[in-house]
């Protein structure tokens, strides 16, 4: 099978763009499946690959910077690793309109470098490393620390062109900043991990680089004091760019991290207000702002759990967690959006939670203080999205009809849970 795929795709793309691979990402898959790595040089070539895959009924895993794990790596069947690596053009940077149209395989960091001379930037940050691409970022669809100030990732997309599972190319939206012409299908493509279509190109909203930016950190020995400071800032300083509570594994302080961005006068005045609101003898610092995400110490071996909860549930969640467990995880909570990330080594997770095979419900025993359910977004470790509340059958039925309409032979990845 692999030989015949190599031949057919070789005829399509030329031999140097088609490579056999054995995927071994060092993770837990016992028998990594064989696959063919395709490196189309243009959107047309990529579309031709999907058409051929559709004819051959062989599954396609789109890859951008390969910074998110593959959906198929635990499957035994062969599949195509379809790289967007060479789809890396900036098609149009309309600086005066603050929009940019790019191909999906362009690295986020590279695009950011290209926008910088115009004093502009993307309205989101790259939280997955230097090779992470625009297409991959949109397919995963995660929000980060800019969400409070700039809005959610899915709201930054003005237009998109995708190829569906049957090779049909479809465009949605456009290049203007306001648009209700037809269904907003981009919403369906963002966050669905390529289940309905592979992103070929997209038009994004841009932001002007603010004139001033800084980061203020307040360190607290006691979690309660940190939570109080966070609550005070949230209630009394609505103009903060972001407000996060962080803790690094193995270290003691709880840190309130505030970002300020805007006119110089704003950053200065708001900084003073933050100091006045958060009194006490604890440590505090003003630092230059970096555009990167506020992330805990990361290690490739570590596992991350992301949860979206109500901002008011952050304090009860932390208060109910075992203090020994807390000391061993790196933790970041966005106090404005309720986005919580926890990272730790596999042993800690396994010891305090439950084995990987039955992860759903993992947080339940640890969080008796939470009265209701909450949405558990993702555990990288197992590369699945676990919704805390199971989707209703009716919603599942809609998703499966969408899937079969857009990808009739199921060559694209499965839709994540939602």
């Amino acid at each position, binding site marked *: 099978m692999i030989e015949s795929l190599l031949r057919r795709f070789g005829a399509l793309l030329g031999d140097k763009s088609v490579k056999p691979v054995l995927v071994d990402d060092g993770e837990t898959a016992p028998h990594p499946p064989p696959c063919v790595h395709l490196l189309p040089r243009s959107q047309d070539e990529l579309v031709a690959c999907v058409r051929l895959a559709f004819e051959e009924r062989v599954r396609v895993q789109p890859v951008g910077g390969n910074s998110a794990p593959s959906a198929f790596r635990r499957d035994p069947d062969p599949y195509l690793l379809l790289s967007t690596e060479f789809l890396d053009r900036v098609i149009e940077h309309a*600086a005066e309109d603050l929009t940019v149209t790019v191909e999906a395989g362009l690295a986020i960091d590279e695009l950011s470098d290209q926008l910088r001379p115009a004093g502009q930037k993307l309205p989101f940050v790259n939280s997955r490393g230097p090779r992470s691409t625009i297409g991959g970022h949109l397919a995963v669809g995660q929000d980060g620390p800019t969400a409070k100030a700039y*809005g959610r990732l899915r709201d930054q997309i003005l237009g998109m062109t995708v190829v569906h599972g049957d090779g049909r190319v479809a465009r949605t939206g456009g290049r203007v900043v*306001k648009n*209700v012409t*037809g269904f907003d299908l981009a919403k*369906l493509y963002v966050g669905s991990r390529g289940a309905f279509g592979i992103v070929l190109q997209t038009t994004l909203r841009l932001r*002007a680089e603010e004139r001033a930016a800084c980061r203020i950190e307040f360190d607290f020995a006691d979690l309660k004091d940190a939570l109080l400071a966070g609550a005070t800032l949230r209630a009394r300083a609505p103009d903060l760019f972001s407000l996060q509570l962080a803790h690094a594994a193995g270290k003691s302080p709880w840190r309130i991290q505030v970002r300020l961005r805007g006119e110089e006068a*704003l950053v200065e005045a708001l900084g003073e207000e933050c100091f006045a609101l958060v009194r006490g003898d604890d440590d505090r610092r003003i630092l230059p702002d970096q555009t990167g995400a506020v992330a805990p110490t990361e290690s490739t071996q570590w596992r991350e759990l992301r949860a979206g909860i109500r901002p008011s549930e952050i304090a009860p969640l932390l208060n109910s967690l075992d203090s020994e467990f807390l000391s061993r995880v790196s933790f970041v909570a966005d106090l404005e959006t309720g*986005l919580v990330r926890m990272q730790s080594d596999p042993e800690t997770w396994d010891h305090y939670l439950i084995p990987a095979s039955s992860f759903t419900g993992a947080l339940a025993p640890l969080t008796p203080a939470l009265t209701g359910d909450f949405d558990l977004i993702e555990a990288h470790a197992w590369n699945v999205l676990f919704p805390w509340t199971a989707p209703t059958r009716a919603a599942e039925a809609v998703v499966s009809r969408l899937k079969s309409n857009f990808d009739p032979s199921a060559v694209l990845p499965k839709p994540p849970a939602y």
Partner: protein
Amino acid sequence: MVPPTLLHDFERLLGPDRCLTDPGVLLAYECDGLTHFKVRPSAVVFPTTTAEVQAIVRACVKAEIPFTPRGAGTGLSGGAVPAQGGVLIEFARMNRILLVDAENRVAVVQPGVVNARLSETVRPLGLAYAPDPSSQTVCTLGGNAAENSGGPHCLKYGATTNHLVALEVVLPDGDVVRLGSERAFDNGIDLRGLLIGSEGTLGLVTEITCRLVPIPARIETLLAPFATIVDACRAVSAIIAAGILPAALEALDERTIKAVESSVYRAGYPANAGGVLLVELDGHPAEVDAQSARIREILLEHGAFNIEAANDPVHRAKLWKGRKGAFGAMGRLAPDLYVQDAVVPRSKLPEVLPAIGRICDELGLPLANVFHAGEGNLHPNISYDGRDPDQVARVVEAGRRIMMVCLEAGGTLSGEHGIGLEKQEFMPLLFQDDDLQSMRLARAAFNPQELLNPGKILPTPRACVEVRSAARKPA
């Protein structure tokens, strides 16, 4: 034709006062704010709960009768018109605010809640619901969800989709689903986002969880008069290019100013201005002051004279009165008003606006512009008499030509009013067959029988061919 048994079922379910069938009364429901398209429904029903909506939908499906949702009927693209007859499901009485959670800044409402009422309710808590369509004292949040409505302050805060975090929806087969979540800021497949802006063709929204925003500490409104509207548009492009994002950036041209100033909406706009900009800044006082200084400089550089700044609520309300009342003021000029809603890249405003003026001059139609300049969202308004077929034909032709000009400038058909019945035939000018087919496939996944709000948004494949070939002919 709706079978009498179905009407009896509705009367039994809702009582006679919540099921209207008298043809005289139904007359009021045959169109929305766009009066071109009129179709009388066979019945109008007024549910008050999700269960009632579900029962109505199931009964319609069983009888294979089309059904169309309606909010306040202020839509401007014919979205709430029952294009193929049948039952109109009117949400006006499903109008309770169910929960306000100030700590998490969300509110849960029924779809018939009027937009402005939500902001009034949460104002004592220091909060507001940001999207503010000019029709906000009448239009419903369900209608806003369906249209993904905008408003002057959506420039900074984003349109409706940015503010609705979760929806309860009755699907066209009567099943109920919850889409999105107030909790997860990041939750995979976004059916919520697909439903918003689907113009009531994918599902009936029965409950909405809205995000609320803190009321800014400081608000300043600037009124900047210019000699011409084109000068005003150049200033808009320069403000955007400078990377400044005001809360609102609205424009009114000379004819609109005259209409406003001779109406009850008089706002004191200067009589000698060929155009004015209303610029609103909000946020931290330090930010507002600094931005105000930068913006004034840009305005002056582009020819603004006598800039007026309003910092107190009474003065600000006075400046906004003319903008908010502009449609009302123009409505007095002729029996009917046609409002276009195309969008162009903001840098193209200075060239597109004169082109639109020329089209109306050629067709002998009075044009007035009042629009969301900061987003490039035009609203050319044409006053006319709908009883005169010649005028109607010229208005329709002007609409078509304006649309072509905007598309050629890299724009789109609608920024906030939707496609509905009005612009569906123009969709093939913007989208290829495969693009439209994707939209059909999305609709089929939700609404396979097309009993829910049929005949909207998507053109028939034959219409695609006709419109494209007509567009190629010289005008």
